[in-house]
Every structure is written in structure tokens, then in C-alpha cells.
């Protein structure tokens, strides 16, 4: 009995030791900053004079709801998310289906599609800045070759965000493609063979075998793409500085502007906290939605007797 207890203690201690790095780093780099950010959001913390910080309670939050630029940043971020998430996921799935073959030579496509992911977003942004240039930019040269007049692209308020979206989708799709590919390779071949016997066409196989089989992975890809899209910063910072006329200013860039450039840490923290709250709410809705769908499927299965 005593031996078991000592052994158990040893196992417990080892377990805690394995967890220790995660606990320490999680606490120092995640929990503490979030708590500090939460506390700062109720203060007028000005980075140049931290010693004069005073508690202002909800003043920052009240000011935020009157801040038109913040509203614009939310609108821009939502536009980015609403387009990037479905397009990037769909493109990634399409690419994964294309390269999910064992034939010779397909490996090069995997590499080609994944290459943009391992290139720094800063480098990609700088390159596309040149591509989008009004004078001598690649895209305008191509357009002029087919007789289309030069476009403003990043210098046009109505085009700038879509230019960033196009680049972001191109740069990020390779990552999701690899995850989808892993999922596709886990789908049992027998299911497709059975479908062949039943004379199912490609679309039927895709909708009734492939999609349901990779549903859990799709959910994961959706969540990481969603989170990544909400955090968009580098592209706007490098390519447009949030312009023209704030048309590419995102929430995270606005946090940076207020908190770092203008040193208004209290105000920047309030934006961060609202942003975090929105994320938490989105997660709750997503989980509730997933549970609802699960319950509906269960109900449908019971009503239809398993079909």
C-alpha cells in the first residue's frame, strides 16, 4: 500500500513537472497579460507617464462606443473575415482534393501551394505592394496588355481591402490545404469503393463521403482561419498603413495605433478587451451551433431510422 502511494506520488510529481513549462509560460505570457490588459482598460494609462495613471472605470468603453474610427475598423475587419474565411477554406479544400493523389509529380504541387505559407507575411506584403503599384506594377501591366486602364488598387479606397483579401487568401490557403490533405488521407478507401459499386458519381462521393468524413477537421480549419482573419494586422501595416482613408484599418491595427503609436494604453486595452469578449461570444455561439446541429442530426437519425 505504502509502495503504491510513493509510486503514485512520483507519477504525480513527474506529471506536474511535465506541465510546469506550460503552466509557467501560459501564466506569464497569457494569463498575466490578459489580466493586466483587463485592469488597464479601466484606467487612463498613458505610456509616457505611467506614474500618473488613474482609474477611470468605464470611461474608455463609453468613449469607444462613440469612436467612429473604431466602428470603421470593426466594419473593415468583418468584411475581411466574411470574405477570407469561406474563400480561403474552400480554396484550401479544392487544392487538397487536387493534390490528394499518389501519382508521380503531384508532390511538386503540394510544395508549390504550400510555399507562400513559409514565406513571411511581411515579405509577401512588400512584394504585393510592388505588384499592385499604379506605375509599373505587375497587375497594371497585365491589365494594360488587355486594354484595361490602370487601377489604383492599394491607392483606391474601394479596392484596397479586396487587394489585401486576394493576397491573404493566396498566402494562407496552403496551410489549410495541408490540414485538409491530412484529413482526406484518413478517409477509408472502402467507402469510395462501396460508392463505386453503387454507381455514385464524383459529386455524390464528395458530398456523402468526403465532406462528412472530414467534418471535424473542417471545423478546426474554420476556427483557425476565423481567428487568423480577425487578427489581420501585418498586411494593412505594411501595404497601406490602414489607408486610404482608413479603408484597410482593422481592429488589431487600431489597437496598435492607440496603444503603441499614441501611447494610450488604457484606451487600447479597452479595445482589446472588447475584441476578446467578441471572440469568447463567437466561440460560445459556435459551440452552441455545433451542439444544435448534433442534436438535429441525432433527431433526424432517430426519425429516419438511421438513414
Amino acid at each position, binding site marked *: 500500500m505504502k509502495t503504491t502511494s510513493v509510486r503514485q506520488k512520483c507519477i504525480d510529481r513527474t506529471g506536474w513537472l511535465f506541465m510546469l513549462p506550460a503552466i509557467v509560460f501560459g501564466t506569464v505570457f497569457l494569463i498575466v497579460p490578459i489580466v493586466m490588459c483587463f485592469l488597464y482598460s479601466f484606467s*487612463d494609462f*498613458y*505610456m*509616457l*507617464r*505611467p*506614474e*500618473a495613471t488613474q482609474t477611470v472605470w468605464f470611461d474608455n468603453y463609453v*468613449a469607444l462606443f462613440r*469612436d*467612429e*474610427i473604431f466602428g470603421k475598423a470593426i466594419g473593415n475587419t468583418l468584411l475581411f473575415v466574411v470574405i477570407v474565411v469561406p474563400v480561403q477554406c474552400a480554396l484550401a479544400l479544392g487544392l487538397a482534393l487536387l493534390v490528394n493523389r499518389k501519382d508521380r509529380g503531384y508532390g511538386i504541387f503540394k510544395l508549390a501551394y504550400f510555399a507562400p505559407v513559409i514565406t513571411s507575411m511581411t515579405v509577401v506584403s512588400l512584394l504585393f505592394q510592388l505588384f499592385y*503599384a*499604379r*506605375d509599373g506594377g505587375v497587375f497594371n501591366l497585365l491589365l494594360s496588355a488587355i486594354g484595361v486602364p490602370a487601377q*489604383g488598387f492599394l*491607392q*483606391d*479606397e474601394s479596392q484596397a481591402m479586396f487587394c489585401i483579401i486576394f493576397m491573404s487568401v493566396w498566402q494562407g490557403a496552403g496551410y489549410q490545404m495541408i490540414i485538409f490533405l491530412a484529413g482526406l488521407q484518413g478517409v477509408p478507401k472502402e467507402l469510395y469503393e462501396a460508392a463505386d459499386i453503387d454507381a455514385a458519381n464524383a459529386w455524390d462521393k464528395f458530398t456523402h463521403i468526403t465532406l462528412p468524413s472530414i467534418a471535424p477537421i473542417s471545423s478546426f480549419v474554420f476556427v483557425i482561419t476565423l481567428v487568423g482573419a480577425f487578427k489581420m494586422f501585418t498586411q494593412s501595416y505594411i501595404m497601406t*498603413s*490602414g*489607408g*486610404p*482613408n*482608413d479603408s484597410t484599418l482593422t481592429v488589431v491595427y487600431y489597437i496598435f495605433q492607440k496603444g*503603441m*503609436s*499614441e*501611447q*494610450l*494604453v488604457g*484606451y487600447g486595452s479597452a479595445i482589446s478587451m472588447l475584441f476578446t469578449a467578441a471572440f469568447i461570444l463567437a466561440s460560445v455561439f459556435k459551440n452552441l451551433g455545433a451542439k444544435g446541429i448534433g442534436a438535429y442530426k441525432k433527431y433526424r437519425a432517430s426519425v429516419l431510422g438511421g438513414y
Partner: protein
Amino acid sequence: MKKILSIGCTAVLAAVVACAGCGKDGETADGEFLGLKKGETFTTDQEISLTFTRPTGNNAQEKWWTDTIAAFNEEYAGRIKVTCTTATRGNSREYEQKISIWAGSDSLPDVLYVDGPFVSNYANSGVLVPIDRYIYEGYTDDFLDYVNDQNTYNGRLYTLSIVDSTVVLFYNKTVLSEERIAVPDEIADAWTFDELKTTATGLTKTVGAKKRYGLQIAGDAGEWLSYAFTPLWTEGVVNSEGKVTTGYLNGDAGVSAGEYLRSLVKSGAVYASATSSDFSAKTPTASMALMGTQNISEFLALGEDMCDWGVTFYPADDEGKISAPCGGWTLGITKNCASGKTVAASEFLKYCTSKEASESCARDTASPPSRKSLYETMPEYSDPNNAMYSVYSVIKSQILTSAQLRPKTVGYEVFSTEMSNALKDILYSTGYDTQAQIRNRLTTAATKIDASIAQIKIY
């Protein structure tokens, strides 16, 4: 025993200065002088260490700083030792962001080199401490009046400048000579902005297979456009208290300025994405360039690879009045400099801004000096036989008669960023072809600036 004695001596020295100062920034009974009088020598029982941070400069600036700090440490050996660290200036205010982080984490160096228009903000927030009680009376008399104005906040002196800068019109002598264009060599004859546009348009042509632009006006992303073109806002860009831009930035003068700049770009004479090398090349992409005097040292360093270049005055308004953008980097003491070290820090400031240091810096880094007397004594500025006189005499005339400081506001960071962004849109983006569109864009910028300044506490 020796160690205890030295610690004791340091403690006594610190206590004496601290008692005289009675505060971190040396605040004491009104007006009490705490520094060394003219001719007095700095003495101490134990060497005082000072930390100093400045942005990384070009080769000439780096060499000047290295030599100057080495000379200071040698002259003050055993009394003061300055350790210098550099931080990347960046293209979008990275240096100022670092200063903010140091201030927020209470890790500022003792002495800091800051850009002139930030003095108001750093003085208001306490990052820099007043130095007027450490600098003897009359010391600043020789400095240019506008430089003293830049270095003063609420009537108190916070910084001292070594050299200054201004914006001038560089031109390619060969191209302008071929085009038979005479460049004004007297300030009274300076081109107006309209004449600049006409000349730039005339110079724009295709040479061989390549387009040669008349003018380039590009600069760094952070503040260049606001720095270079603020004088076009003839009614000012901010109110006298430095807190409100609405009604100024988006006023009638601002709309006219926006219209002019857009028409300049639309004329096709401006090379939008130029760098200084597009002007300096022997086969240039641009024949003229509106640039800061800080580019001169780079041009001189190019030697044989540099085009045959000259300098003329910043353009005048329609009435012939020039308001040339001026103001440069300046040295101040931070709140983190312990009271026992402030006298030593002020000695370092005086050493770097002495007449000798200012002259050597002006010469080595090709920057206009901050002291009036040097414009009379330095051969580059006073001797017509000097090789650089044709360039420096233009700068001298401009600085002594037409200097205009960048706006003094505690919100300079957001002001310059937002104004530059607005100008970038008006100049290069689509949808700013009418007065109303230009005014709307300037109003958006002014609203953002005012909102941000309102959030900064005035202490």
C-alpha cells in the same frame, strides 16, 4: 576600506546635489541655479556613469558620435563616463515607440536624443526634465531663435541642439543647364510653388526609352509629407495652444494646399515612388528633388558616382514669402537620470552642443549648425571661395530668414501621421478631385488628431 570610503564620498556628493535638487528632476526653490557656472570645472570624487541613447545614423553621423563621445570620455576621465547605445530610427516611428516603451517600463537612459517636435510631448509627460537650472544664463543666446523655441515648453528649456535641418530643392545641374533653366540664387527670387510646378512639368520628358520626371517629393512613411508641406497651410495647421487642428488643417488654406499638391502629382511631373538614388544617379529618374538637408552627406559620400547637383530655395507662396520647414534632433535629460547625475548629464549636453562640437558636427555630417555665430565663421557658409559655399549659402539664407518650425503640439505623433496619411491619399489615391473631397479627407484627419490630443492629459 577604500571601497567604503569611495561609496561614502559618492553618497555625500549625491546627497549634496539631491538636497540642492530635492526631487528627481531637480525641482527646487524657484529659479535656484543648480549647474556649473561659466568657466567652472566639473569635479567629483567618484566617476559618474551616464547612459545615452540615440538613433542609428548614417556613416558620417555614426563617426561623429563615436569620436565625440570618445573625446568626452577622455576629457572627463575619472569624472564622467558616457555609454552610448543606438536604436534603429525606422521609417515609421520605431524609435519613438521604443522611447514610449522605455518610459512605460521606467528604463529610460539618462540622456536621450529626440526629434525636435517631440520635445513638447516629452516635456508634458515628464519623459524629459527641464534643464534651464543647469545651463548658465546666456548659454543659449548663440542658438538660433527658432531652435530655442523648439527646445522650450511652457517657458522652460528642455533640450539643446547640435545641428539643425531644413528642406531645400535639389536640382541636377546638367539637366537644368541642358534645358536652359536658370535657378534662383537669391532668396528674393525663389520660385513660387506655381513656378516649381511649371518648371517640373517642363522638365518631365522621355529620354531614350525612360521617363525622366521633373520632381520627386517622396520621403519616409512617418512624417515626411507633413514636414515638407506644412508651410503650404499659410494660416497654420494647429491652434496656438497646439491642441486643435479642426478649422486649421481642413481650413481654406489646407484645401488650396491639397488641390495644389494633387494637381502637381496629376501633372505627371512627380515621381511618386522615388528614393534619393533616383535623383543622385548620373542618368536621373528625377531632375529635381524636394528633400531634407540630411541627404547632403549621403550625396557627398557618393563622390564620383554622384550627379552634378546644386541646391536652391524652398518654394515661396504667391506673395513671394518663404516659410521653410526647419527643426532637427536635440539632446535632453530624462526623468530616469538620478538627481545626483543631472549636473554631469548637463555637462555632457553642453559638451555636445558647444561651439566646437556644433561646428565639427555641422562639417562632418553636412548639417546646418544650430548656432548663429557659426554661419559667420564657418568657411562653408561665409567664404564665397569655399567649394560648398553655393550649397550652404542657400541653406544659410533660408535658415536665417525663413525658418518655420514643425507644429508645437503634445500630439505631434498622431498629428504628423494623420496629416501624412491624408496627404498621401489626396496626392496619390483616387477620389480626391474636388475641393469637397479634399476638405472631407482633411476633416477626417483633423477629427482624429483632435480626438487623440483630447485623450492626452496636459500635466
